[in-house]
């Protein structure tokens, strides 16, 4: 899909995500908005080879949105691509609806439960290791938050995946710099962030998290086959709350609900696509 088309998907997805949250007073728009372009690029950019008609096909690529509070980011996409029947999105968090506050494997297209941080990379590494042992060609992607990199289990797996030379594993780390109480560098310092991944034996690529030009360049490199013997980390500079000016880069908006006036302002802003490249 051409970049112009991907940008259109961004515009659609961001508005859907906002309305899901406003409608139900549940969900995390800022964290989801921060990785909207990452998941659009994966699903619509041809990087994630999946089959909505057979979500468990053994040779499918795997995607683990490990930052489970933003797991809802792919719900509109799962409906759009036909993993679930049309109309499911309207039932987000409602009784009888498939889409839950936090995803789990009861939802077609969801590979693992999420919500508790620090699991996705390990489970993804298990899939990547199985592919190596079976000689399968599928790739495994894990989308992590930087807040998730406080979890020791993330680094346990970072060390393990490098040792196992899982070059079929791509971690996309959303470096938006915010957790709930404050910016990460004011909570517990994470910098030098990229150096940590490099020191753990990963091949590190960098991208603006909201630029398809940069994201597709990084993803092209990640799946090129030129990176051999090392797992790949794409450090994606996202903006938490991207697209809604008063939420952008404000940790306090992690799970705050907007007032009616704020909703109107946000809708006005989201009517214009914030993605330009």
């Amino acid at each position, binding site marked *: 899909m051409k970049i112009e088309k991907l940008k259109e998907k961004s515009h659609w997805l961001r508005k859907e995500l906002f309305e899901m949250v406003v409608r139900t007073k549940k969900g995390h728009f800022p964290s989801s908005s921060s990785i909207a372009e990452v998941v659009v690029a994966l699903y619509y950019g041809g990087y994630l080879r999946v089959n909505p008609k057979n979500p468990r096909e053994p040779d499918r690529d795997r995607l683990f949105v490990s930052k489970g509070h933003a797991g809802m980011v792919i719900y509109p996409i799962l409906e759009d691509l036909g993993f679930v029947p049309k109309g499911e999105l309207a039932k987000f968090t409602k009784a009888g609806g498939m889409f839950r506050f936090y995803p789990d494997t009861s939802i077609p297209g969801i590979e693992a439960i999420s919500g508790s941080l620090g699991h996705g990379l390990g489970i993804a590494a298990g899939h990547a290791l199985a592919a190596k042992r079976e000689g399968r060609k599928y790739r495994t992607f894990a989308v992590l938050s930087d807040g998730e990199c406080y979890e020791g289990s993330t680094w*346990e797996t970072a060390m393990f995946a490098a040792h196992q030379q899982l070059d079929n594993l791509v971690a996309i780390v959303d470096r938006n710099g915010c957790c709930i109480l404050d910016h990460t560098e004011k909570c517990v310092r994470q910098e030098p962030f990229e150096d940590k991944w490099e020191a753990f034996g990963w091949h590190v690529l960098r991208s603006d998290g909201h630029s398809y030009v940069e994201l597709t360049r990084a993803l092209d490199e990640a799946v090129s086959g030129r990176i051999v013997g090392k797992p790949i980390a794409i450090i994606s500079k996202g903006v938490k709350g991207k697209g809604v000016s008063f939420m952008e880069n404000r940790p306090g908006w992690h799970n705050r609900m907007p007032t009616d006036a704020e909703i109107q302002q946000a809708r006005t802003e989201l009517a214009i696509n914030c993605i330009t490249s």
Partner: protein
Amino acid sequence: MSDVPQKLPRDSFIDEIYAEAIRNDRVYFMSADLGAKALDRFRKDCPGRFIHAGICEQNMVDVAAGLAQCGKLVYLYAMAPYVTLRCYEQIKVALGHMELPATLIGNGIGFSYTDAGPTHYATEDISCMRALCGCEVISCSDDTSVIETARLTYREPALRYVRLDRKFLPQVYAAGDTRFLTDGIVLTDEGEDACIVTNGYMLHKAREARVNLAKQGRRIALVDVYRIKPLDPKVVRRVLEPFSRIVTLEEHYLAGGIGSAVLEAMADASLSRPVLRLGIQDRYFCENGGRDYILGLSGLDVPTITSNVAKFLS
């Protein structure tokens, strides 16, 4: 003693898994840096399917979940406290919630890492693991039950926590006697006056106490609680109903251990009996002196068990 098996429990278990691994390339064995004599052969002959997880139990469980999702039959091996409490939330979320079959092998239950202290003792693992939804809890009291448990894990894959003693345990079941697999709770020694419900190392201590009590004219039955979870109340009723008094005996804290599990099953089966619960004191044990000495500090030495049971019956 002629009935002492030739192999440690972990070696008997791993030898069975090795045999299956040779037949079945879906078998994967993960270790958080714990070895075993039998594991050397597995590592040599199945190098791609022995996975060193690092001393990273959390990683071990999450990776195992991924492998299990890809159809692998995964064994996770570490000292009992580390393969349970250290990665408890991982087991709940990644294995329990996703209903993935995997076998957690806890080596060195109770005080069997003699003199190592509270970091190495597994004395609350039963209560923790039986609280996890969908997790079977099994404790092996002899070599036959170890071997049959290993075979069960690949014949009927499920999320299971298997408790292994670190030391040799004398024989309880004759080869081929697999009543424990079907019933979970088994009368191992006959008696009429009362029964002691126990397992593992303490079953063998109870046997010594039983001999002492026989000299006092007390005929005591012994019951092995092999499968702590799930316990079928109907079977518990069938096994325990003949006894007017019941003693539970465990190398574990009383909160949530086998005494609790058996009493819950008795309540569910409307079986009411006077019960004496014997377990370890509610404190951490750092003292030197060996397993039996530490057990004695909680009154779990053979003479004190003998006198407490006699007192309970009089």
